[in-house]
């Protein structure tokens, strides 16, 4: 029995049981269990203040948990901090690179801290800058970088010595679509070389693109866990988004749609918009006909993936809200 347990441990990058972190009375992380296999991408999906970053910081040895146990590649988070630190790397929500230094200098610093000689660290920095398409900005101070460049440098800094486990805290928040795609490509390349990635995100889309499995986190608890298709299936096959031309017709439209579709219709904060979950996508066509029969004019009518908000609405019965408590009181 014990042997079986050990084998199981070895195939897991992260194994956590009942992790708890309190900030005063507020339970930022309230009993999180994880079993993340090596070589996979695992996504934490949730709104600000849900406890994603706090959990990540605990697993990266930056915060001491108030309860629970965790092992990183079989190393105890409490007793073997150095061993844990030797296999993880952290890329923070606020770029954890030094703004005052150049790209080369940032990477050289990390390389020297990892034991490279001065000459080797320079070489490694140049190699990574080239690989991350930053060679032209090598000598520029990071404060003059764009958001996407900064994030790439941040990830490059984590890769000076390739970690077995990379923590990526909201890697694409605030980036333009092109930079976001670049980061996604980078994450895929990392995984293809064998690194396990734990990422947090507020975008279902991003978790969908990158993560093998997703944990939906709210108020410090995992409220749903599974592959992205499992999660979506639990939310419904699709979401119908309707946008009207005249806001006055919304009540009537809601009435019509809910009878036609046989589900409840959600009113968005946008006074012109409504959305509904579809169990059967064929009903969408009927709904459109019904609206036009009643002279309700529509500017947008689309079937789409549920958004994080809709996942939350289904899972918790209320929309995703930013918790008033700032996550991890990140200072």
């Amino acid at each position, binding site marked *: 029995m014990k042997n079986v347990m050990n084998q199981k441990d070895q195939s897991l990058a992260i194994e956590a049981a009942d992790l708890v972190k309190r900030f005063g009375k507020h339970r930022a992380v309230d009993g999180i269990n994880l079993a993340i296999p090596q070589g996979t991408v695992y996504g934490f999906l949730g709104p600000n203040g849900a406890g994603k970053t706090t959990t990540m910081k605990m697993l990266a040895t930056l915060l001491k948990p108030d309860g629970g146990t965790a092992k990183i590649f079989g190393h105890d988070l409490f007793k073997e901090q150095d061993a844990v630190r030797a296999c993880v790397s952290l890329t923070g929500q*606020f770029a954890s690179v030094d703004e005052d230094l150049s790209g080369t200098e940032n990477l050289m610093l990390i390389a*020297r801290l990892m034991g490279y000689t001065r000459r080797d660290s320079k070489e490694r920095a140049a190699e990574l800058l080239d690989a991350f398409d930053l060679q032209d900005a090598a000598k520029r101070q990071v404060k003059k970088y764009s958001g996407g460049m900064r994030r790439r440098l941040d990830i490059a800094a984590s*890769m000076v010595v390739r970690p077995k486990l990379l923590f990526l805290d909201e890697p694409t928040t605030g980036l333009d679509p092109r930079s976001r795609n670049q980061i996604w490509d980078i994450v895929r390349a990392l995984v293809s070389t064998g690194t396990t990635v734990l990422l947090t995100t507020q975008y279902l889309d991003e978790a969908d693109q990158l993560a093998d499995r997703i944990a939906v986190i709210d108020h410090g608890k995992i409220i749903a866990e599974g592959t992205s298709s499992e999660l979506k299936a639990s939310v419904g096959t699709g979401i119908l988004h309707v946008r009207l031309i005249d806001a006055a017709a919304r009540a009537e439209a809601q009435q019509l749609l809910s009878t036609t579709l046989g589900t409840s219709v959600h009113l968005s904060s946008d006074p012109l918009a409504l959305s509904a979950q579809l169990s059967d996508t064929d009903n969408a066509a009927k709904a459109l006909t019904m609206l036009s029969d009643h002279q309700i004019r529509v500017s947008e009518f689309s079937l789409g993936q549920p958004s994080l908000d809709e996942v939350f609405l289904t899972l918790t019965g209320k929309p995703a809200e930013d918790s008033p408590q700032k996550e991890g009181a990140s*200072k």
Partner: protein
Amino acid sequence: MNSEQQMNKMRAALVDHKRPPHPNGFATSLAFTWRALLKIKYVPEQLLDVTFFPVMFTLMFTYLFGGALAGSTTDYLQFLIPGILVQTVVFTTVYTGVSLNEDISKGTFDRFRSMPIWGPSPLVGALLADTVRYTLASIIVIILGLILGFRPAGSVLGVVAGIMLVLIFSFSLSWVFTMLGLILQTTKAVMGISMTLLFPVTFASNIFVDPATMPGWLRAFVNINPVSILTTSLRQLMGGQVNGMQIIWVLVVSAVLILIFAPVTMYLYRNKR
């Protein structure tokens, strides 16, 4: 980055490299010293406090009060220069706390704290780099003093030994401000509280005047004030005397400062959210 070529380049850069052996704490501290010195290269204004401040204070005290206090400015200089050196360097230690506070608020330290390196090395490295600043400040004060007419009776060795003593004391005192840098929320608060602490400690000392004319209670404080003890040692060393007991007292105070404030600072640093 979109091309297949770029992806291949990245994979090549990421495949397992042989990992160099873990560096020792001294090497990692020096890497952080290097980082801090690079910052001076980019933000030379950082050196204003160790250049203008001592020049201004020396000139002000020499010419405003020198005549009244010691009969002539030249006489006063012999008394003042070792003291103003102490004051300048002691005030410079505040910036250690301020820059640490700034650094931490930016998140850079999260990465360092999650790396397999000797825990205190980011702080020790920063303090070592500050020692470079203190040395610079000391040299400026001595040179300015020599230009104005300071003529130390001791040898060059005495002057150098005096500066060394100031550096040791300041390195130790810096831990108080690194602690404040970790406790307080903003750099302004660090600056404000540190200055509030330092003003009485440096002015209620024998830096500017002989405590003989002070009321008894104040004289008692001035005489046990570590800054006074340091200043006296410095005057003696630069004046060509070696008073072993005084020097030992400075070293004892330095050791006590480190023994109390370094562990507290490290505790706060490790447990910073």
